[in-house]
């Protein structure tokens, strides 16, 4: 895998990639508790999202402090997100807004303990926060991992940048943590030092820490839900491939070693893991720790946005902004549709529609079927958007550096 330049790198590293936290804990069905949603697959099930985006579909919009390209999450009646501010971007913000009104409920600020330098396209607030339904886990490029309760009361604070000062990237870090059961899992991977860590969600104490490939990596962990007696696993992606890790112990259960992207992250649908590897590759893990590689399709290679699966189709967007639909069972490309790119954000899929936001803040809603894709509405928000949207309570949430929007019918 070739190294990233400052330019190519940015093409998006991030934000789309950043993130997630998939929480398998119990929570309201309408929540969106991590990057790419509760199941970390960008699919909003049971939601009726506004497909006609326009000024009238904006339920509210609010000004945000500082900078941030992290995505919002939704927990109960709160929209939670992060920001950073100050000349050195060393002021870290955790913000809570009321879902109904957009009113700021509370804000807490902290001072970064780790390095805050990053490319101007990024922000220290690039990773999307996560929640277990009772707490918020805010993570930053400085490797500060902060836990508050839903009222903003600090529960624990890990200065991973202070504990491991070489585990940083001068371009910035974007990987978002996930939550599996009582464990917060974060990937902290750079050229100089790389590890993954499992932290107890309640106490903040390290449960395990494992070495990872020493190479800059902006992907986020995802979740392989438990099945057939096999417990849920954390999938950690890197340039070397994907490792399935026991969230309780950090033990590697199986390993896909054919290489993978360091920007878009894998996604899981049913018993299939869709990996940005040699284009796009799917595997089916078994309960005994083995897996079967199903297909590989170079023509479905994603750019920065992570792949999405809906209605038996994979959806990927290449660096030129071309949306490709593929058959999730065979890897055959079904059709392509030109969108206005470029994209850092990963789209949300819901009810047969895909919701895209490009880097210029241009939103496109695509109705997708096996026969083709159709752009059904567009809206220019006029601000740079790099984060991936959240979908909850029949509404869509998206943020730029300066604004947070809620769209609803």
């Amino acid at each position, binding site marked *: 895998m070739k190294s990233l330049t400052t330019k190519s790198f940015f093409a998006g590293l991030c934000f789309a990639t950043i993130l997630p936290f998939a929480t398998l804990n119990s929570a309201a069905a309408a929540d969106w508790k991590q990057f790419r949603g509760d199941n970390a697959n960008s699919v909003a099930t049971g939601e009726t999202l506004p497909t006609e985006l326009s000024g009238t579909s904006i339920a509210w919009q609010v000004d945000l402090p500082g900078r941030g390209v992290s995505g919002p999450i939704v927990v109960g009646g709160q929209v939670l997100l992060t920001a950073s501010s100050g000349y050195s971007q060393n002021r870290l913000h955790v913000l809570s807004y009321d879902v109904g009104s957009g009113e700021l409920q509370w804000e807490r600020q902290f001072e970064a303990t780790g390095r805050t330098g990053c490319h101007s396209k990024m922000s220290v607030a690039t990773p999307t926060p996560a929640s277990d339904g009772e707490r918020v886990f805010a993570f930053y490029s400085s490797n500060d991992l902060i836990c508050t309760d839903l009222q903003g009361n600090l*529960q624990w604070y890990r200065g991973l940048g202070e504990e491991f000062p070489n585990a940083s990237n001068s371009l910035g870090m974007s990987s978002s943590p996930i939550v599996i059961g009582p464990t917060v899992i974060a990937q902290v991977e750079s050229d100089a030092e790389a590890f993954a860590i499992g932290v107890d969600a309640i106490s903040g104490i390290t449960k395990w820490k494992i070495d990872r490939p020493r190479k800059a990596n902006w992907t986020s962990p995802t979740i392989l839900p438990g099945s057939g007696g096999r417990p849920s696993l954390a999938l950690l992606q890197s340039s070397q491939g994907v490792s399935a890790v026991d969230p309780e112990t950090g033990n590697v259960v199986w390993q896909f070693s054919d290489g993978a992207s360091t920007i878009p992250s894998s996604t899981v649908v049913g018993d299939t893991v869709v990996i940005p590897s040699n284009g796009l590759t799917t595997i089916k893990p078994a309960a005994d720790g083995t897996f079967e590689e199903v297909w590989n399709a170079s023509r479905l290679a994603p750019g920065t946005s992570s792949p999405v699966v809906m209605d038996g189709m994979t959806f990927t967007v290449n660096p030129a902004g071309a949306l490709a639909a593929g058959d999730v069972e065979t890897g055959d490309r079904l059709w392509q549709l030109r969108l206005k790119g470029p994209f850092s954000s990963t789209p949300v899929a819901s009810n047969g529609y895909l919701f895209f936001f490009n880097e210029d803040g241009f939103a496109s809603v695509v109705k997708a079927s096996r026969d083709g894709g159709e752009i059904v509405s567009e809206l220019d928000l006029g601000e740079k958007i790099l984060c991936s949207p959240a979908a909850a309570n029949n509404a869509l949430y998206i943020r730029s550096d300066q604004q947070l929007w809620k769209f609803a019918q």
Partner: protein
Amino acid sequence: MKWKPVAAVLLVWTALLQPESLQAADEIETLRSVGIKAAGTIQARQARDVLVAGGSDNLVPVLKGFRGSTVLASNWLRSTFEAIADQQLKSGKGLPQAELLVFVRDTSQSPAARRLAYEWLRKESADLEEQLIPDMLLDPSPEFRRDAVSRLVGQAKAAKGPKAIEIYQSALAGAVHEDQVKVIAEALRAAEVEVDIQKHFGFLPSWKVIGPFNNRELVGFSIAYPPEKKIEIAAEYDGQLGQVSWQPIDTEDDYGVVDIGKQIENYKGSLMYATTTFRSDQARSVELRLGTPNAWKLWVNGELVFQREEYHRSTQMDQYKVPVVMQKGDNVLLLKVCQNEQEQSWAQDYKFQLRVCDATGSAVLPAGTIDDLSQTKSGN
């Protein structure tokens, strides 16, 4: 709102003379004791709850706790302060403005804590900036300095001729941030006023370098070549391309960039050593701030103070901040700079910049040059 200085001072003295409750002191110490790896977290939560329940009386004591605390611990104090302050505002009780204002003005307290108090006071007092910031040009807090410099730059832009130059020069005295210094220097130079940006920031422009030594396949980063065992300026060694010896190199770049690739040889898969001596008039803590897109190791007086094996992930001024203690007299700095073998055009940079400054970013100049820069001297 308008502040009444005399009344405020009396209130503050009254507050200062009243001993903090023993319990609050214990709870604050608990927060100050929080360590890495979540050490002391459970106790800290309990302490925070007690302090929040105590209300606004605990605001100033919590702020005082910042002094001498680690950043990690101060985040517990910050969070506690914000919880109390938020509670005060939402309940309509307001903040103890007079006490907090005195705290903001007390430059012996933590800059971060003073800034925190200021930002919360501003929620209730829109004119606070006008009242405080003009006097904060040389404040220990970089954030207050930045605000003061920003005001002056605005005034200078509105002025003309000698008056504008005078204001810009005043602003430069307090400026510690690159973007502000650039704006000021550009304006002064346009008016044909000399500005020494190198000295303003404390960049070290004069070095001796030796190399190249082999770093093909990145092997050199962990190899201790002769210069890192002992610095002998007159010595010669077997290098990657033949015999090598120490050569002087000086940079006139405003930001102290020493471009090894241009001035020596941009040899792929190599490494260079650079050394200089910094004479300090006293033993003191400083920050060495380094910028380089290359992998590097840094020694001060023979002690390895940090190392980092990262290539071409961008570079910027103050990219790395390494706290060190300078001894009185001469201090020998040795920097190892490594180049990999990437072929892309953007991966050919082979350079570094290094400055000595205090925690605010103000230059710490070597002995013998301090008097040459009165503006920065006053800021220290």
